[in-house]
């Protein structure tokens, strides 16, 4: 029983009898007991002292939707209760599950059962603390544990000092338990620290998110740094300590990916004095994402109290402790629509306000927003899209994409929308509600007439403006699949939240804009057949045999029927985004945009040939026409991966920027017909890069006309490579560049006809068509004959630009989330543009020249094709939800672009006219 007294043990039941003695004892008595224990240890073997700890943990759901462990009947806390035991002890954990999902209990490095506990049930886990050290325990739930089911188990040697520290004079001083003034546990999860403090009497206090732990100068403070999920390095300013198990003195320590721990002891302020000493993760992207706090060392005489961080119980909508700063948490996910999913998203959807999105949160000033990339295989940024005018800490952004999370405290009332720069339709919105107004939720700050600023440099936009309302509507449609246009149901319903919102124009309720039962019909298929087949990345379609979303949908252009769905459940195919084919059209190359994978698919059978790691968030793939080598834009990183023709290994990555310069993060690239140049839209640096296919940076041309945030996203090129077209997503513009020098020739404003305040359309660009515009343009290929650019605009337009004049000719209507466009051959001559949409499930087929007279003004929609599978569709998995949705990359087979068409095998050439075989008349 003595051993129990010596342990600062936080177990219940067994220790109830002892707890009073343990926690109530003053220090001299503790020391006396310690001496007796040490004496006993000398006389007997440590085996005799090994204790059995019976601990009851309950997994609970917190007010903000995060999960946490509670010890016995205590409050559930993040990190979970810290368990202190001695080497050789046995720990019996009874785990109750009060959450709605299966949870487990796992301690990497120590053996135990991997069984899970169902909701409402319990299970006992037995762990033998064989070896001294600090261990993380967690819920073992494939990422869900990052929501808060993690804690520390500290196993100290049965006898002797528990640690040592470096004194100001360089001496090494051993540390016994009784020397320690206080201990801090800091979990590094996502890009947030979750802390707790353990006083010398064993009392544990939650410090929550990004706290400022405190101590008094010369206090002996033991830190336990732990991590679950992506890796980190921990750095504490002006202090140094031993690397565990070595005599190396360090001040920064790697916590490796997966789960890792590092414990150390310092004498607070030794050799450096009092101060607010920052601690932080030293990964630049994590620093930029807010991963820091301060170790406040008070001068002698101070209270060393520190400052508690943001609590999941705190000052958020429906929080239970409104007097404490609160935090809401978004899980970053690969799941369609729920890309930023509030941890309490299911509960929000269940509220009686018709909120259909799981990506909206409400907090009060001074509370924080936490993001954790717990459900994604890709890399991301957490970046501001818009915020209330004058808001602090805005824009929130990072200089590169990464794995982790984000943390930002918001003080100014109003609407904040976050996105990922790599995947710019991932949206999360937070309303910071002003407690001083009572008519509704504040979309802006009353001090600034409720206006918002945009990342594109647009300032003081009234929240009642047409553009602001369009952006809001886009958010509520993109993040709620029930609001998508499902042609298989025959009707369209859009429900906006039934909530009063305070805008620049007074109180509004978006539910007045609801669409109820609008009839939907797919429409007719094109009268004239195309040539070959069209592959569409229905990136959001879910199938039963895998967790991750996305399929490829194959349409036969003779019958306009969906002939095949390729889901690839065996590799958990994740968000297939864009495709290309090899020269003989036998292999489809497929990027997985929310992952680091790229797959090769047998075009005729739909079978997987190979799944290859190519770099994070591969977006587009294009072959080099004269070599058939494969180039893949690595959207989450800083280069273009190359796979030589006929092989399945990446041999190199062509850098898209000079050494040490900010990552370009290329998205939808193109290659010149002669195979000499790769042209990339660089989303992170807002420029167009021109690179030699054998290396070298030829040009980097900014596209924003000196305004920030243009976000160039896709490239089209003239068949003779004379001009480059680049769509700027957030500037609603098309940059035209000289194909050889990269010089900017002109910028076509795609919303010149649109008044963002009133929503009125006038003929601003004087092309005699005031209704021609494109909001949020994405793919913008040039027709193989070089006559037109077709721009799929996510606002629901298809814009046609005449390459002879570089002016808009007209725009056609498209479904919400219009995204991909590519050309294929029309039977008997000419081309179809195939256009895809994310939030609708049909393919739009555009005929630029229906009368074969070259008059682009006659361009029209030739027909539509449902992308929902039928009884005649061959499948490798069963479609389970979101049928045919998420249309993004689109590829026509045969590839009829100049440079590629000439290399087609004869049997494919035979399906084309002479003009199609020689699109620029060579």
């Amino acid at each position, binding site marked *: 029983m003595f051993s129990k007294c010596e342990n600062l043990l936080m177990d219940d039941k067994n220790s109830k009898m002892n707890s009073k003695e343990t926690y109530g004892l003053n220090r001299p008595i503790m020391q006396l007991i310690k001496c007796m224990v040490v004496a006993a240890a000398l006389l007997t073997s440590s085996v005799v002292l090994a204790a059995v700890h019976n601990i009851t943990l309950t997994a609970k759901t917190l007010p903000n939707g995060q999960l946490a462990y509670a010890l016995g009947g205590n409050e559930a806390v993040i990190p979970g209760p810290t368990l202190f035991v001695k080497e050789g002890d046995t720990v019996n954990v009874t785990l109750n599950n009060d959450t709605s999902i299966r949870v487990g209990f796992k301690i990497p490095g120590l053996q135990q059962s991997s069984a899970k506990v169902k909701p409402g049930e319990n299970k006992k886990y037995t762990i033998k603390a064989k070896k001294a050290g600090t261990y993380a325990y967690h819920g073992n739930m494939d990422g869900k544990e990052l929501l808060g089911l993690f804690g520390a188990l500290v196993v100290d040697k049965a006898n002797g000092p528990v640690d040592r520290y*470096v004194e*100001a*004079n*360089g*001496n090494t001083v051993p540390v016994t338990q009784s020397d320690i003034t206080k201990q801090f546990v800091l979990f590094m999860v996502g890009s947030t620290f979750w802390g707790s403090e353990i006083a010398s009497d064993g009392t544990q206090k939650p410090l929550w998110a990004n706290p400022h732990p405190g101590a008094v100068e010369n206090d002996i403070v033991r830190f336990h740094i732990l991590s679950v999920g992506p890796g980190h*390095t921990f*750095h504490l*300013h*002006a202090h*140094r300590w*031993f690397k565990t*198990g*070595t*005599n*190396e*003195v*360090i*001040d*920064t*320590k*790697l*916590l*490796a990916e997966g789960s890792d721990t590092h414990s150390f002891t310092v004498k607070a302020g030794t*050799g*450096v*004095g009092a*101060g*607010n*000493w*920052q601690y932080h993760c*030293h*990964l*630049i*992207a*994590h*620093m*930029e994402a807010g991963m820091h706090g*301060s170790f406040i060392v008070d001068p002698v005489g101070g209270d060393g109290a520190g400052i508690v961080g943001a609590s999941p119980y705190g000052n958020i909508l429906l929080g239970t402790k409104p007097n404490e700063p609160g935090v809401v948490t978004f899980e970053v996910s690969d799941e369609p629509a729920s890309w930023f999913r509030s941890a309490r998203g299911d509960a929000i959807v269940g509220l009686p306000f018709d909120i259909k999105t799981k990506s909206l949160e409400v907090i009060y000033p001074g509370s924080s927003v936490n993001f954790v990339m717990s459900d994604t295989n890709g890399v991301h940024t957490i970046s501001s899209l818009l915020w209330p005018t004058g808001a602090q800490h805005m824009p929130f952004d990072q200089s*590169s994409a*990464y794995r982790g999370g984000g943390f930002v405290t918001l003080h100014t009332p109003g609407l904040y929308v976050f996105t990922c720069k790599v995947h710019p339709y991932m949206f999360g919105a937070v309303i910071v509600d002003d407690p001083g107004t009572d008519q509704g939720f504040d979309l802006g700050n009353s001090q600034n007439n409720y206006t918002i600023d945009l990342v594109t440099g647009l300032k003081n936009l009234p929240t009642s403006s047409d553009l602001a309302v369009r952006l809001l509507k886009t958010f509520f449609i993109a993040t709620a699949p029930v609001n998508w246009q499902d042609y298989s149901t025959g009707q369209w319903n859009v429900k906006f939240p039934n909530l009063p919102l305070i805008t620049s124009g007074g109180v509004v309720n978006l539910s007045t804009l609801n669409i109820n039962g609008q009839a939907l019909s797919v429409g007719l298929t094109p009268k004239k057949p195309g040539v070959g087949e069209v592959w569409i990345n229905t990136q959001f379609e879910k199938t039963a045999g895998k967790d991750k979303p996305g399929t490829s949908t194959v349409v036969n252009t003779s019958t306009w029927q969906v002939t095949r769905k390729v889901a690839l459940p065996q590799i958990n195919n994740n968000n297939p985004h864009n495709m290309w084919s090899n020269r003989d059209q036998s292999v489809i190359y497929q990027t997985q945009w929310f992952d680091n994978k790229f797959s090769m698919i047998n075009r005729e059978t739909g079978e997987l040939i190979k799944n290859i790691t190519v*770099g*994070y968030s591969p977006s587009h793939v294009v072959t080099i026409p004269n070599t058939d080598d494969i180039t893949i834009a*690595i959207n989450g*990183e*800083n*280069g273009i991966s190359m796979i030589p023709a006929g092989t399945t290994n*990446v*041999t*190199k*990555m062509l*850098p898209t*920027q*000079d*050494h*040490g310069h*900010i990552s370009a993060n290329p998205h939808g690239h193109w290659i010149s017909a002669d195979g000499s140049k790769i042209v990339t839209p660089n989303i992170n*640096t807002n*420029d167009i890069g021109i690179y030699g296919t054998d290396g070298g*940076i030829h040009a*980097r041309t900014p596209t924003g006309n000196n305004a920030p945030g243009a976000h160039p996203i896709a490239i089209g090129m003239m068949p003779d490579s004379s001009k480059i077209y680049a769509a700027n997503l957030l500037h609603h513009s098309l940059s035209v560049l000289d194909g050889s020098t990269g010089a900017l020739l002109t910028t076509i404003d795609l919303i010149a006809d649109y008044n963002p305040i009133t929503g009125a359309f006038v003929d601003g660009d004087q092309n005699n068509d005031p209704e021609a515009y494109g909001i949020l343009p994405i793919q913008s290929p040039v027709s193989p004959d070089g006559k037109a650019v077709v721009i799929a605009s996510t606002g629901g337009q298809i814009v046609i630009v005449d390459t002879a004049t570089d002016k808009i000719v007209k725009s056609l209507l498209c479904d919400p989330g219009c995204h991909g466009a590519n050309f294929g051959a029309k039977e008997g001559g000419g081309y179809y543009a195939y256009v895809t949409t994310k939030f609708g499930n049909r393919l739009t087929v555009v005929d630029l020249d229906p009368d074969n007279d070259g008059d682009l003004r006659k361009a029209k929609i030739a027909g539509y094709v449902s992308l929902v599978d039928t009884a005649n569709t061959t499948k490798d998995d069963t479609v389970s939800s979101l049928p045919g949705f998420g249309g993004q990359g689109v590829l026509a087979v045969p590839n009829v672009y100049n440079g590629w068409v000439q290399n087609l095998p004869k049997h494919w050439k035979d399906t084309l006219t002479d003009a199609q075989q020689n699109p620029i008349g060579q």
Partner: protein
Amino acid sequence: MSFQMNQPCGAMELSENSNATQSSPHHVLLKQFLVVFLVLALAFIDKSLAAEHVIQLTAKETRADGFGNELLAYKMVSHTVNGQDITSRYSSEATIPGPTIELTEGDTVEISIFNEIFNNDVQVPGISKQVSIHVHGVHYNILSDGTLKVINKVDDEGAGAGLEPGAVYSVYTYTWNVAPGTVGTWAYHDHNFETHNGAEHRGLFGAIIVNPIGAAHYAKEYVLYLGDDAFWGMEINGATKKQSKHGPNPTLTAKEDTHVRFHLIALGTDLHTFKLNGYQWFDPGTTNRINEVAIGPLEKHVFSIKAEHSAHYEDKNLSNKLLGMRGKFNVQ
């Protein structure tokens, strides 16, 4: 040298700095710390070996990519040890990596930062124009943390226009106590440029090497920084102390059978696994022989080897490997 022409009033700069410190209530605190440091030095150090370093660094734009993008770099302006000028061992240019400063346990350092980055003295709300030196490993008080006031609660501790109204310094001076127990190789880097995170990832980094008294000498010292797309490195000739070969993925050279030392420091966002093919070394602070090491941003890893054969040093991180993050170690 354009630097001196631009700001000829060295005396004025110094007085500006002392104004800055005088205006701060922590000036007294600083003095107290200096006294404490002196007492410590007297008590624990063989005083005859302790050196006083006076160092001036500046920061400027460098390595323009030809398309309007530049990196930033530190440049050594002057370094005296007990009054003796050793500036000639450093590059006369602003370099990435910045100068490697060799110190001995027990030394004291007074290091000043200047700022030659365009428009650095014009305050812009919400954006810091300052450049600072935040050092790892050694002792310093809160005024020498090299951070912004939003972090340290005292001052914007750098050269240039800070975030706080009126916090515009043409030079900022830090005091480091290279106290016993600080032996090792440590990074220094900016913490103040544009945001409170600084511009370490844009080139503003360097290292100090704190040797123990009576340390072994090496024929060559290589300081290699593992960045997000390249190694940035330099080498120091052990005999002449001359620093050279600054830049990405440098080719390092050694004479056969000489003893050389590698100083690894990681930077940026990526985690790395370093390998020097065909070589083994002691994991620092242990007797374990290893042939590769996992290293994350701002960790350090120092090892020495006998140069026996030429080899490549490389990062095993997949993307970095594909980007060609490797270099030659040529043994002749």
